Structures are given as structure tokens and as C-alpha cells.
């Protein structure tokens, strides 16, 4: 069973998505509610994939992925960004940061599930 780390400061959103991932995808889900907690759990839980919000307190999504990529232990964990803006600058920044993919809020649930499956398969999980 693939393990997914879900990092977003919107508690209700995290709870709902975690429930969906476990119930319809059969994934093992670990949650974090800010960038620092996300980094800690990325190191301790060894997830197969991280779903990472961009705008978060303490450390934002860009800082988190930079630190993930900078450490051998976490560099290879693929990241799907949760974006809340489709400004070209934001999307360029998401790409440049090294995310495997991104999804714009609000999204259709099957789109999220397909992206997760595709990224996991690409990474042989």
C-alpha cells in the first residue's frame, strides 16, 4: 500500500482529502498542517508521494520542496503541488521548483486520483 503525505494548513480540507485517498484509493495517508510539520513527517514517515500546498504558515510549499530536494533522504519523493492560483508566474514557479505535477483548487476528485496514480506508477510504486 502506497503511503501519501498530505500537507495543507486547511484542516477540514486535509481531513476530507485524507478520507478520500484512504477510502477510494486504499492509500495509507499521513497528514501535516504546515510546512515544518510536513518536512518532519517526510523524514520520519518515508512517504511514496507528497501532496503539498503552496501557501502555508511557517514554511511555504516552495521552501518545503527545496529542503526535500536538498536532502538525499527525501530528494526522490515525488511532489504534487496544490495550487490555488493559475497565474502563469505561479505555474512557472511550480514547474521550476521540481514538482512532479500540480492540481488547481477546486478540482474534480477523479482528476486528483488519476494524477496520484500516474505519478506513483512513474516512480514504480
Amino acid at each position, binding site marked *: 500500500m502506497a503511503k501519501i503525505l498530505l500537507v495543507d494548513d486547511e484542516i477540514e*480540507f486535509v481531513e476530507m482529502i485524507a478520507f*478520500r485517498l484512504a477510502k477510494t484509493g486504499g492509500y495509507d495517508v499521513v497528514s501535516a498542517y504546515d510546512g515544518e510539520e510536513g518536512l518532519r513527517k517526510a523524514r520520519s514517515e518515508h512517504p511514496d508521494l507528497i501532496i503539498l500546498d503552496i501557501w502555508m504558515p511557517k514554511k511555504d510549499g516552495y521552501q518545503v520542496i527545496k529542503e526535500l530536494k536538498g536532502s538525499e533522504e527525501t530528494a526522490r519523493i515525488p511532489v504534487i503541488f496544490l495550487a490555488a492560483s493559475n497565474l502563469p508566474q505561479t505555474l512557472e514557479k511550480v514547474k521550476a521548483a521540481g514538482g512532479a505535477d500540480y492540481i*488547481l483548487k477546486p478540482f474534480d476528485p477523479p482528476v486528483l486520483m488519476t494524477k496520484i496514480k500516474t505519478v506513483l506508477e512513474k516512480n514504480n510504486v
Partner: protein
Amino acid sequence: MIGVILVFRDISEGRRLAQQETEFVNTVSHELRTPLAIVKEGISQVVEGLHGELGAEPKDYLDTVLRNVDRLSRITNAILDFSRLESGKVVLKKVLFDIAELSNEVVTGFRQSAKDKGLELRCLICGEKVMVLADRDKIAEILVNLIGNALKFTDHGYVEVALTEQAGAFEFTVADSGRGIAQEDLPKVFNKFEQFGRVAGPGEKGTGLGLSIVKGLVEQHGGRIRVESELGKGSKFIFTLPKKDEK
């Protein structure tokens, strides 16, 4: 020397304002999209039966809620797109792609709505291969707006998407047999906040920004858009895309 210092100040002030504007749009976008995402996910889970079986009547109600969340998302996108077009911040990401294939995708997305209204939806270019250098997402947005409008304002007959090759440009037509637009309203069709053909009463009114956004996007590609219409006899929106990359 004073002049030089002032120029630097102006540039730096301009950058600061542009940065401030980007941050504002990002913040508004975040603050609108995040609650929408929570509402959409919550309702979707209940409708899908992830929290237990749902009766037919509550499911119908929640389907209506979901449709309206999508409506709010569309309006949010339109307002944000419009603010970016107005400030000249839309940057095209041009790629070479098959526009016939894209048209087919967009038309397929409208098949059910056309069927529900008893309309014939024809795509006269969907079997060919027509490569263009343009921003795929923005061209999709143009087609979605034009076909969506045509379906919205057509009660009987057809909506037709066609493409002809002209010297130096591709010409797209989205035609319908709908309500049409009065001659005196035609010059105002692409103005922002203008709305035509609306039936008084309940239902989605829209923002009046769709065609203004379409015009902005077509012109950003170096193309032109025009409308031919007669009240009660349908409308024809025609836009061009230059074959050569002019931008």
C-alpha cells in the same frame, strides 16, 4: 543625475506595484478557491456515497449544489482572467498542437448539454489534423466560451463549429440557430459587462465578461474576432488565428 535617479525610482516603484498586484490576485484567488475546494470535495464525497447511501431526493439536491459550485468556480476564473487581461499580465505559452483534436475534446465535453436541450452539435473540423502554434489552454478557453454561449442561447436547431483555411490565417466559426442579437447591440457584444439575449427570470446570468475575455485572448494571439447575427435567426462568431507566429 537627478533625472537618472528619478527614472530608477519610477522603475522600482513600477515593479513594486506590479508585485503588489500579483500578490493581491494570488491572495484573492487563494481565498476564493480554497473554500470552494472544501465545499466541492465535501459534497462530492456525500454524492458518491462515501459516507453512506444517499436517497434519490437528497442526491438531486446535492447535485444541484455541485453544479453551482462549478458555476462559482467558472465565475471566479472569469473574474481573475479578466483582471489579468486588463493589466496585460496574460502570458501566452505557445506550443504546436492539433487544433482539430482540441476542438473535438471541447465539443465532446458539450455533447451531453446539447443532447439535454435537444440540439444538434456539429463539429465540421473534428476529423482533420490542423497544426497551429498557439496557447492550447487559451484556445480551449475561447472555444468553451463560444460554444457554451451558443448552446445557452439556442433553444432549437443546431450549434456548429467549423474551420476554413484563409491566406495567412485559420478562420474558426461557431454558428448557431439561436435567439440572435439585435443589430443595435452588435457593436457592444465584446464590451465588458454587456449581456444580451438574457431571458428575464431565474437562472445563471453570467458576468458579462466571457466575450470580452475571448476577444482579448484572440487579439493576444494576433487574431481578430467578429460577430454576424440577426434577431431570431441565430449568430455566427468568427475568429482568426494567424498561421505564422506574429507575437
